[in-house]
Each structure stands twice: as C-alpha cells, then as structure tokens.
C-alpha cells in the first residue's frame, strides 16, 4: 500500500519522527486550522514526481494558499486526479539530504541509502554524481541504525549527526509497519544537527495488513483513497478496470495468465474491460466473491460477453463450476452471454455441471476467444 504523504506522516508522527506541522484538505473553503505560515501546499497522490509536475507550491498568505489548493486540485499528475492536498509549514534555513530504507530482495536484507543532498534531482544524483551511498544490512532496527551510522561516518558534523539519528529513528516504524520502502526526501538538516522529514514516501506490505492495526484502521476509514488495496482486503481478489469502454468482462484467475490474456485480446483488436485475479483457489465453497466480481463487471456500460478462463492448479473445477452457476443466479444485472474456458483438475465434472445449465465449456483458449469474437460480431450486427 503506497501511502499518501499525509497518511505516512501521521503514522510516523506516532513514532516521534520530527515533521513539519500540517493539515489535509480536499477543498478550498475554510483553512481555519492552518499552522502558522509560510506554507507549502502539496498534492496528495500515490506517485512520484509531484514537484516537477507542479504539484508542490510555496505560499506566504492564506489567500495564496487557497489559490494554490484550488490550482492543484484541478491538475492531473501522471494521469491521476489530485483529490487532496497537505498544507504544511515551510522548513527554512536547513540543508536538504536524502535517506531511504528498503527491502533488498536479492540480498535478503534492508538496503539503506543516504545522500548528503536531497530534493527533486535525487535520481540523477544516483546515476550521475556518485553522491548516493548505500549498503545492505540485517533486517532489524539495531542493524539499520549501525549501517546508517557507518554510511555517514565521513560526512560533515551536522549531516552526520542528523542522518545517523534519522536512520536510527526511522528503522523502528520501518519494521513496525512492515514497510517495503520508507523514503525521506528531502530530509531537512539544521546547522545544529537536528532534522525534519520534509516528505515521506511509505509503501507497506499488503500481505501483512491483517496484523497491522493502524494500517487496517486507516484503510477502513479511507477506502476511497486506496480502492484497490481495500478491494483486495475485503474481497481477496485483484480487480482493475483497464478500459472503461471495454466489451469483454474477464472472470479469470492468476495474475500472469490474466495479464497475458488482456495483452493478447488487445493485440487481436478486442477490448477487454477489466483485469481480474479472482483466486479461485481461495473461494472456500462460497460464491460471494464471484457475485461481487460479476456485479462490478456489470457496471461496464459496453459489456457484451463474459470470458471465464480458469486453468486450475489448486482449484477444483467441479466446485468452481457450481459456485459460478450460483453466482450468475445472484448477479441478475449481468445479462451478457458467458464463454467458459476451463482446464485442469476436475474439468470433467465442471463440464457436465455447466453444460446442464446451458453454458458451453471449451478446453482451448484459442477456441474460447473465437467464441467471444462470434458473440461480439453478433452483438455488433444487431
């Protein structure tokens, strides 16, 4: 879960991380609760490059602030609409540095990255100037603190003191919230060696949500801010509308095969509506998840046909076929014809169950796509 900066900062504040005071707003109305200015207005969205895209503006008066909020809420950054802004106090008379902690999959540890300069050009610095330093350490807080200390040992005192302290302080929330990435850029460093987290990019592990109280709570309160994570948490599947005008609703399992199917349908000129990894292996005898999915697909205004594609490994297809029939009955809004391609464990039972209900089952994906095409041709002709 890629947290909005504001949410990340609230979570970090609970761990005593030094932060500029700030508030979240989704409109330009009353800004009564503002901390003392001057301010910086920052677009809140889960994507990098906000500064370069005009999503960060410094303001000196409440009127300027209101205008900046209005401007930013009208923009799209990396194609995403901006739904809220964080308004926070500017940090002045401080140098900018960089610190991040991330899971290093290859080395089975935590990678600590620091740079004596921070800001928007950090990526160029990483490849060009050689200012970025990094090392991998054991995945525990004392190791991260020690690793950061070593990385900044030869820096000048205010930077050295601040970065070492930041590494030690940030390690705790990194492990407590089970982050995969925690990046502070810029990390403001004052001449006395104290520091403030100017920005916070925090990505947490969705797999750990069930045991992460604060994150679960956040997700519950703000499901509309994190729709895909909320969906997965509630329904146990991954669903993304890939083409709002798509004509083919996909009821598919397995991320890899589902992605490949979308690519191949598009290449042959067809328009799939959604990506879905329904995880048939996790249905546990209950059609509820399939009903939800069918109702979501029914929202597609141009849906003409449903393509079911399940190559069963862990799934028993006989059981899946019965659940699919039950789900179709409970999702009457979906009137499009169903093409079912099933292969793997239990396909014989599945075939007799579905064919008794008038749904033909094919075993080859190519044949299924041909049937989909036939349905679309008939629908377009009509």
């Amino acid at each position, binding site marked *: 879960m890629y947290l909005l900066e504001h949410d990340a900062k609230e979570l970090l504040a609970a761990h005593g991380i030094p932060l500029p005071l700030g508030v979240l707003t989704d409109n330009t109305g009353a800004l009564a609760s503002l901390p003392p200015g001057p301010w910086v207005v920052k677009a809140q969205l889960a994507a990098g490059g906000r500064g370069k895209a005009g999503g960060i503006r410094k303001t000196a008066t409440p009127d300027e602030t209101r205008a900046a909020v209005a401007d930013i809420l009208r923009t799209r950054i990396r194609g995403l609409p901006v739904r809220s802004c964080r308004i926070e106090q500017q940090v002045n008379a401080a140098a900018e540095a960089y610190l991040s902690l991330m899971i290093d*999959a290859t080395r089975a540890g935590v990678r600590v990255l620091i740079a004596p300069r921070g800001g928007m050009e950090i990526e160029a610095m990483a490849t060009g100037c050689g200012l970025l330093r990094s090392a991998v350490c054991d*995945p525990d807080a004392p190791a991260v603190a020690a690793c950061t200390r070593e990385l900044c040992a030869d820096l000048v005192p205010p930077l050295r003191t601040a970065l070492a302290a930041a590494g030690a302080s940030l390690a705790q929330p990194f492990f407590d919230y089970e982050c995969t990435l925690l990046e502070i850029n810029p990390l403001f460093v004052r001449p006395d060696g104290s520091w403030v987290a100017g920005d916070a990019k925090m990505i947490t592990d969705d797999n750990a949500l069930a045991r992460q109280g604060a994150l679960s709570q956040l997700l519950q309160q703000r499901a509309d801010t994190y729709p895909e994570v909320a969906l997965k948490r509630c329904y146990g599947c991954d669903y993304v509308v890939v083409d709002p005008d798509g004509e083919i609703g996909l009821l598919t399992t397995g*991320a*890899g*095969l*589902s992605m490949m199917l979308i*690519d191949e349908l598009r290449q042959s000129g067809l328009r799939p509506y959604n990506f879905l990894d329904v995880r048939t292996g996790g249905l546990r005898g209950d059609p509820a998840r399939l009903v939800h999915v069918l109702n979501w697909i029914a929202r597609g205004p141009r849906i003409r046909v449903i393509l079911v594609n399940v190559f069963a490994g862990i799934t028993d297809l006989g059981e899946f076929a019965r659940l699919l029939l039950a789900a179709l009955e409970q999702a009457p809004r979906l009137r499009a014809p169903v093409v079912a391609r099933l292969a793997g464990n239990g396909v014989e039972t599945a075939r007799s169950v579905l064919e008794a209900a008038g749904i033909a089952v094919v075993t080859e994906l190519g044949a299924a796509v041909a049937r989909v095409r036939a349905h679309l041709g008939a629908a377009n002709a009509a």
Partner: protein
Amino acid sequence: MMMPRVDRNTPVLVQGITGRAGRRHSRLMRRYGTRIVGGVSPNAAVGDIDGVPVFAGCREAVAATGATASVLLVGPMHLLGAIRDAVEAGIGLVVTPTEGMPVHDALKALRLVRAAGATWIGASTPGMAVPGEGKLGFLPDSALLPGPLGIASKSGTLSYEAGYRLVQRGIGQSVWVGVGGDPVKGTCFADLVPFYASDPATGAVLVIGEIGGRDEEELAEALIAHRFAKPVFALIAGRGSPEGVTMGHAGALVHGAYGSFAAKQAALERAGVRVFATLDEMVDGVTKWHSRA
C-alpha cells in the same frame, strides 16, 4: 544454492496435511506418484490422513519417516514458523505454495533457510515437478510430460497454459520449478542457472516472467556470468500493464527504470535469450528448437 534432486523415491512430508488444501493436494500428489511419507499438523491426534501418518512436528516426522523434502500447505501468517520447523528438522527442500506471505517474514525465512543450507521454493508458487517422477505442489497433471525442457516460472497460471500448449506439441519438461511471484523468495531464476546448466536431462530452458522486480534482469546477468550454453526462451507477462498498477503479485509493481517489459526484454536479449510476447509465438519458437534438436 544446491537444487536437491527429486524423483519417485524422494520421501516427502506435507505440513498442514489436515487442512482443506493439505488433504486434497496430498491425495493428488500421491496420485501423480509423489512418495508422501508423512504429514505434520497441530491436530496430530487424527493419527493418519488416507493412511499417511500425521505428526505434531517435523522433528518427529523426520525421525519416523526419513523425509528429506516438505510441502507446506499452511496459512500465510504461519509460514515462517512452519519453514523454521522444517529446516530445524534437517529438511533439505522446502516448497511453500501459500500466497500472501508477509515480506518481512520472507526475509527472515530466507536467512534461516540459507543458514541451514537448505533450498526453499516459494512462496506463492504451484511448486515444482519432475514429470513422470513426482510433484511437490499442484502443477496440473495435464500440463506435465517428461521431456527436455526446463521450465522456471514466476506466474502459476501462465506457466500452466504454456506447459499445456507445449505438451500438445509433444514437448515435455525435465524439471519444472515455479519460483513464485513474491518479491522476496526462496529461489529466484538466477539461482537455477547452475542447476539447469549441469542437469543432463535439460536441453533448453523456458522462463516465464512477469513485469516488476529484478528477477529477469538478474537472470540475464547470471546466464552471462555462467556462459550458459543451452537455448533459453522467455515469455514475459504484463507488456500492456500501466505503470504503478499492481496486477496481482506484489512483485508485479513497476517502479522506476527496471522492472518494465522493455527493460526485461532488453536485458534478456543481451544474454542471448529469445523473448516472446505471446503464447503462440513462444510455442512456435520452442517447437522449432525441439524439431531440430
């Protein structure tokens, strides 16, 4: 990492054998020929499942059966403990199909598996198979056939489809390893390079990758470093996926310069891998190699 040899005589445990998946897939694995010698479950009091003795822990199970490999069909929050139980009992090959293992747990598991000198395949994987000998996990029988192709795959379902279509062309597999789609995993593509290089049954390797992570890029580096001489084919899913949208696996989240389809294709092609964009093209390419070989 040493990939232990698996055949019909390999004695295998199933941890979580009394659960829904454990019971069903123990039956299916045995039907395929896997020698399952015992199960492990907190409900050891059941005595046996379909005649397979059930133990309370791996230590007792290994002592009684001599098992050297284990398939873990337990929930994601229990995986770390179950992996620890297995490697502490001296199990050399641990296969964990379970989806949804927390990544911080996976880090700890990887460290303890490496310290024990064991091999871990998973998590989020259908497992592995040596067709005609046995399977550890639930790769579908209809996609398995003894043959010369080594398969290594991140995605379960896409590999089923690929394996199945190749089987229809009469091309089977030597050793099929589902490495799984998690970012931190027991075995990654690059780890398998020395194994496939030295395995006499493997004539070529098919890699089924996915956008996100660095596994394909690291594979390319390993192929070059080992001067891997056998043909390598790759099919990469997710070419049309938008950046930053997770399409299921935690690993399929594209950040920055690496991880994209183009980056993987370029890295693999530099290492001499033939990269295909569609299943049909991949099947044609592998079939051409097979008919010449």
